[in-house]
């Protein structure tokens, strides 16, 4: 009786060990998938917000107004010291219109999105 119980316990232990092993492998694979999905999602959110910021800046330039330059981590307008994202622009006037290259980069300097916009406003049209 004691021997049989011992065998049963060993079987249970073996099953438990196998289950934990399989679960660990599958959990690692699924976790990897979820982490990469999260990273792609964050990148998409960042790109979408950067596009909106560049669009806003482009329309400001076309209307002859100053755009928002510094954004915090949640893409709200911020002071330079708290800026996580920075909008840079480069003006060029040529042949009756102005060309503005607008770029959004993060605090480490990595470019997220850039756009070149022509505007009549600065040329006095």
């Amino acid at each position, binding site marked *: 009786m004691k021997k*049989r119980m011992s065998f*049963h316990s060993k*079987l*249970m232990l073996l*099953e*438990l060990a196998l*289950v934990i092993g*399989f*679960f660990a492998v*599958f*959990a690692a694979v*699924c*976790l990897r*998938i*979820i982490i*990469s*999905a*999260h990273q*792609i*999602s964050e990148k*998409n959110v960042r*790109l*979408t917000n950067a*596009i909106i910021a*560049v*669009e806003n800046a*482009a329309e400001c330039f076309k209307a002859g107004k100053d755009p928002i330059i510094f954004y915090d981590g949640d893409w709200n307008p911020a002071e330079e010291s708290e800026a996580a994202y920075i909008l840079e622009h480069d003006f060029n006037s040529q*042949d*009756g*219109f102005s*060309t503005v290259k607008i770029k959004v980069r993060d605090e480490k300097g990595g470019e997220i*999105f850039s*756009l*070149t*916009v*022509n*505007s*009549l406003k600065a*040329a006095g*049209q």
Partner: protein
Amino acid sequence: MNKGRYTGLGSTSLILVFSVLCLAVFSLLTLSLVNRENTLTQKFKASVENYYSADSMAVETAVKLRNALSDGKIPAKINGIAIHSDSSGSYSFACPIDKEHSIAVRLKQEAETLKILSWQKTNTADWRPEERLGIWSGKDVP
């Protein structure tokens, strides 16, 4: 005794199968959702780039048209874009954004400058209005 001896054996395997299935389904759903989100973001990016590319082309065309008019010429095309003029002295052209949209511009010459009458995004795709709605007329009651 024999009946209860192996109670519980295999239940952990069943829980494993259920957990693994849940994990696999939820992780694949997450990945699928993110891939769709990514496709949408790329489409948004492409649409913004195409719009501002067309807008920039429209600005260049307007400036070249103004220069041509100040030289006393009315060009038929500028940068491959057809320029249309009418009797009221206004000029119009359209810069394509994509297959279904374009920026339509109407300008009027006033002294040395061109006044913008309209500068708008228009739909150029063919579409057919649905004129017949399948509304129940009250006849043919079963």
